[in-house]
Structures are given as C-alpha cells and as structure tokens.
C-alpha cells in the first residue's frame, strides 16, 4: 500500500486520518457525555474536561491537515457498480460530516473561551479566546455543541452502516479500501 492515494486505493495517510478521527470522535463523545455527570469530588471532575478539550483541539488540527491532504492528493474513483444516488448520498454525508466536525469543535471552543479564558491542550500549548463575552455564550454554545454532536454521531453511524451494507450485501470493496486492502 502506498502512502499516497491512487485512482483505486486510499493511501495509508488518508486511511490513518480516517481511523484516528473515528477513535477520537468516539472518545470525545463518550467522555463528553460521561464527564458532565461527574460529582464534584470525583478525581475526573477536572481531568475529564481537560482531556476532552485537549483531544478536541488536536482533532481540529488533525482535520485541517486531513482536508489539506485531501486537497493536494487525488481521491480514489467511485465504484462503477454504485448507483448515482448512492454516490450522491455518500458525497453529501461526507461534506456534512466535515461541517459537523468543525461546528462541534467550534461550539466547544466557544463554551470554554466564553469569558476570555484560554483552552489548554495537555499542558503543551493553549489556544486563546477570540469570540467571547456574548450574553450567555457558554449556555448557547453548550446546547448547540451537544445537539450537533448527537447529529454527528448519528450521521457517522449511518455512514458506518452504509459501509457494512456495501461489504456484506453488495460484496464490494468500499470497506476493504478503507482498511487498506
């Protein structure tokens, strides 16, 4: 397997981006839902949000790099067996997933920086606040953050089910291509 994409294959860089994103999104979603229910004396009460924010910022940087990689690289062609609506639906959901990823990360950032505080990333560096001080910013951003995250996970699930359908029912190599085979 090549590190770059070809007309028929994803390269390992693109594949790596995809699966690291899967891992990070699932971690962020579960950690996010779990950490907001923690009690004050829980050792994770501070650690949970700290890790959640740090991973979130790293995912943002990763997604920027991923889009850049997608831009400077070729994209494997669609399978000829796929119908026009399947290709269209896949394209729309891919664009939506990217938009949702960025919106969820942006709204998360707007919660933590609502009062002008920085977001710390694993004590390595921090991201300064840009838009802050809007009335109830943390509450509004918080509600949108959760709602969009749920939509993101739902569309990801449909995306995953579609890949499984291609693998088991259509018996094409849509899924195999994403694991480098």
């Amino acid at each position, binding site marked *: 397997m090549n590190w770059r994409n070809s007309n028929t294959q994803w390269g390992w860089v693109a594949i790596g981006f995809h699966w690291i994103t899967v891992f990070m999104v699932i971690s962020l979603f579960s950690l996010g839902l779990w950490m907001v229910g923690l*009690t004050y004396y829980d050792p994770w009460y501070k650690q949970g949000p700290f890790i959640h924010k740090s991973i979130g910022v790293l995912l943002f940087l990763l997604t920027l790099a991923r889009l850049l990689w997608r831009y400077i690289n070729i994209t494997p062609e669609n399978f000829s067996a796929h119908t026009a609506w399947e290709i269209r639906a896949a394209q729309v959901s891919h664009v939506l997933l990217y938009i949702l990823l960025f919106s969820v990360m942006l709204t998360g950032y707007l*919660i933590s920086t*609502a009062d002008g505080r920085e977001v710390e990333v694993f004590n390595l560096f921090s991201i300064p606040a840009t838009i802050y001080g809007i009335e109830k910013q*943390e509450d509004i951003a918080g509600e949108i953050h959760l709602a969009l995250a749920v939509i993101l996970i739902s569309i990801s699930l449909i995306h995953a089910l579609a890949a499984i359908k291609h693998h088991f029912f259509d018996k094409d190599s849509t899924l195999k291509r994403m694991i480098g085979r």
Partner: protein
Amino acid sequence: MKKIIVASLLVMGMVSTPVFAENYVLDIKGAHAFIQFKIKHLGYSWLLGRFNKFDGSFSYDEKNPAAAKIVVNIDPSSIDSNHAERDKHLRGEDFLNVKKYPEARFVSTSFEEKGNGKVVLRGDLTLHGITKPIVIDVEHIGHGKDPWGGYRRGFAGKTTLALKDFGINYDLGPASREVEMFLSIEGIRQ
C-alpha cells in the same frame, strides 16, 4: 385657571405626603444595588459571585417604619462567578436549573427596627421553585438628597441560606452546604 391647577396640585401634594409611604425604586440603572453571594470552596477558601440582573422597589415611611415593604425580583440566570464554565454549571440542573425556574424573588412580610439602624427583615424567598421564609439582618445605611435633585435611601442586608432548603442537593462537600448572601440596595424616591 392656571393658579387653580397649581393650588390644587399643591394641596394634593400636602395631603398625600403624610398619608402614603414614600416609594423607592432600586437604582438598577446606576448599579447602586448588589446581590452577592459567597460559599466556601472545599472549606479552604471563599468563592464569591453575584447576580447581575434584578430589580425591585421598597416603601418606607419614617413615621411608620414597621409598614415598610420590599420586593426584589432576581434573574437567577444572571449568576456571575467570574468563570463562564462554572456559571453554566450553576445555571444548569445541578444547581439553579434556570430553565425550569427562571425567576427568583424576595417579598418582605415584616420590617422590624431594632434601633441604631438595625432592622430584622422577614420575608419569603422563592428560589429554585421553592418558597421559604427567611430572615435578613438589615442595616439602614443612610438617606438624603443626592447631588442631582433626587432623594435616596439605602440598606444592606445579610443572610445565610442552606442549599438543601431550596432543593439544591449537588454535593459540594461538608463545608459548602450554606451560602451567605449579601444585599446592598439603594432606592431612588419616586
């Protein structure tokens, strides 16, 4: 005709002044009123905060102070502890649940002057959807003309609330079960 109107207004003024207590509206525009709270953090330090949005009025008659009345409406979602994420938590279901209970209010039931400017103010506080009688130790700070043609009167009050009395059961630790409230209000006579 003009004289009659002026004369009758004067008479009305003379008649009404002793009958009705003076009414004051809290100086919210000039922000000469504050509702602050403090609660212990872990038992190691004080955490301070305030409510930014509220309004209210009171009546006070020097000849009959026991008839004084005060009403203060507080917007609990305006809680401000100088930390957005904490304020979000405080507004949420673990604490004030401001979506379900968007209003807080204090309505006085009695005003008892103890001399030396000390007052025991009793009333009903509605917070987190629960109404409970509370007692506020009040100090009459002062009153008189302001430099801009108005007349002002101010009080300061202190009280301690147990969070569980108002149905707030989130565990902040044994040292943090009570919150101290401090109110400073200045009314402008209407």
